């Protein structure tokens, strides 16, 4: 499973390096970046993500529609260290096999993430940076919601109920023409209410190429359009209920995510379409049909 995923990543990298001796930059849409904000900088990001899952395997007519609006603030304490706070506003709706609709909405689990840039290498025509990230996902979302049919399934609840640790690293290679980012992170999920979500390993690879302007202006800070292509992977261990594995949980999903991005001096507007190219899920789980992400960022 992993060999298949990483083989795909290698193909992705080699194809894009061969296509473009000089190819965009900015910040990827669904992946993190190895750059840190400057000292005293505050960046606000608002995003709308839509995700559609349906019953591809048994065709029982089940489906999930989810809209998540993560509101993110990032502050640069020093030129090398920053803190990010993410508050997701969530709407999830499950259509069951009987046609019943079960839904919940409200704030989800808040994430607090620190980033420290520990490696910088400047070279003729580019720069590469590596940052370490560590943080916590706090149980601010409701994890015990119910409706007329009883408690909502764990996948529909807004929160996990547990304090979960996050650790990872991000690499960025940036030139005036193109940018490559690799974002690896591990989420150590903990138990709450006799249930524990499986640990999650996220692996993202992003490539951006400037498509306009083709020739850079000799003076000033210009605005630009980037074409973005990302591989967004998530590997999740099986969840546990009362100490026993949940058969219909965990697995590996990889999205191939083309996108478009407008970058100016103080703001970024972007759109990404996430299409699942690998879905190797345990047991009988709803599979993702597609996901959409629309966002903007503004720096103060």
């Amino acid at each position, binding site marked *: 499973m992993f060999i298949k995923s990483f083989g795909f990543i290698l193909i992705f990298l080699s194809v894009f390096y061969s296509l473009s001796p000089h190819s965009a*930059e*900015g*910040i990827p849409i669904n992946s993190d970046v190895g*750059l*840190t*904000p*400057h*000292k*005293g*900088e505050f960046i606000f990001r608002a995003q709308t993500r839509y995700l559609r899952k349906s019953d591809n395997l048994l065709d029982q007519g089940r489906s999930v529609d989810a809209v998540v609006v993560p509101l993110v603030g990032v502050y*640069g304490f*020093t*030129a*090398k260290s920053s803190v990010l706070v993410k508050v997701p506003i969530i709407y999830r709706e499950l259509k069951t096999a009987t046609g019943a609709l079960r839904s919940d909405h409200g704030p989800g689990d808040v994430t607090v993430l620190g980033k420290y*840039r520990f490696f*910088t290498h*400047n070279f003729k025509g*580019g*720069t590469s940076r590596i940052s370490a990230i560590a943080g916590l996902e706090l149980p601010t979302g409701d994890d015990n919601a119910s409706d007329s049919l009883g408690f909502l399934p764990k996948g529909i609840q807004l929160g996990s109920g547990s304090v979960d640790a996050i650790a990872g690293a991000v690499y960025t290679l*940036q*030139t*005036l023409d193109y*940018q490559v980012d690799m974002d690896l992170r591990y989420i150590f999920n903990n138990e709450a209410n006799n249930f524990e979500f499986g640990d999650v390993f996220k692996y993202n690879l992003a490539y951006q190429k400037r498509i306009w302007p083709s020739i*850079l*202006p*000799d*003076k*000033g*800070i*210009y*605005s*630009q359009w980037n074409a973005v292509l990302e591989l967004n992977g998530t590997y999740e261990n099986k969840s546990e209920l009362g100490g026993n594995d949940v058969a219909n949980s965990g697995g590996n999903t990889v999205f191939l995510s083309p996108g478009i991005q407008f*970058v*100016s*001096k*103080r703001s*970024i507007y972007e759109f990404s379409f996430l299409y699942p190219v690998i879905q190797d899920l345990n047991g009988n789980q709803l599979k993702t049909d597609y996901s959409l992400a629309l966002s903007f960022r503004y*720096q103060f």
Partner: protein
Amino acid sequence: MKSKVKIFVVPVLLVLLFLFPLLSFAEKATQKISIKVEGLYCPFCAYGIEKQLKKLKGFKKVEINLKHGVAELHVKPGMSITDQAIQQAVEDAGFDSATIERTQNGDKQ
């Protein structure tokens, strides 16, 4: 009436004639500092260096040339900005090093 106009216009012209060389000299005395910033490759990041350089005292204008990774500081006549202050601004913007070159009246210093 004509003589009154003359009385007004002649002194104004004289003052302008007197000020012109001074204004011209002041323009010539402007110092330009070119800062080659290592690792500056994105518009969103370039705003950071512009903002940090604008915190320095004594500049008239800050220009960023992203294509060449150069920031230009036009210093007010009679003012000075130290290399250390510039280097600190560059570091606070998230860039590690800069090469600083000063020119006065178009001549390198």
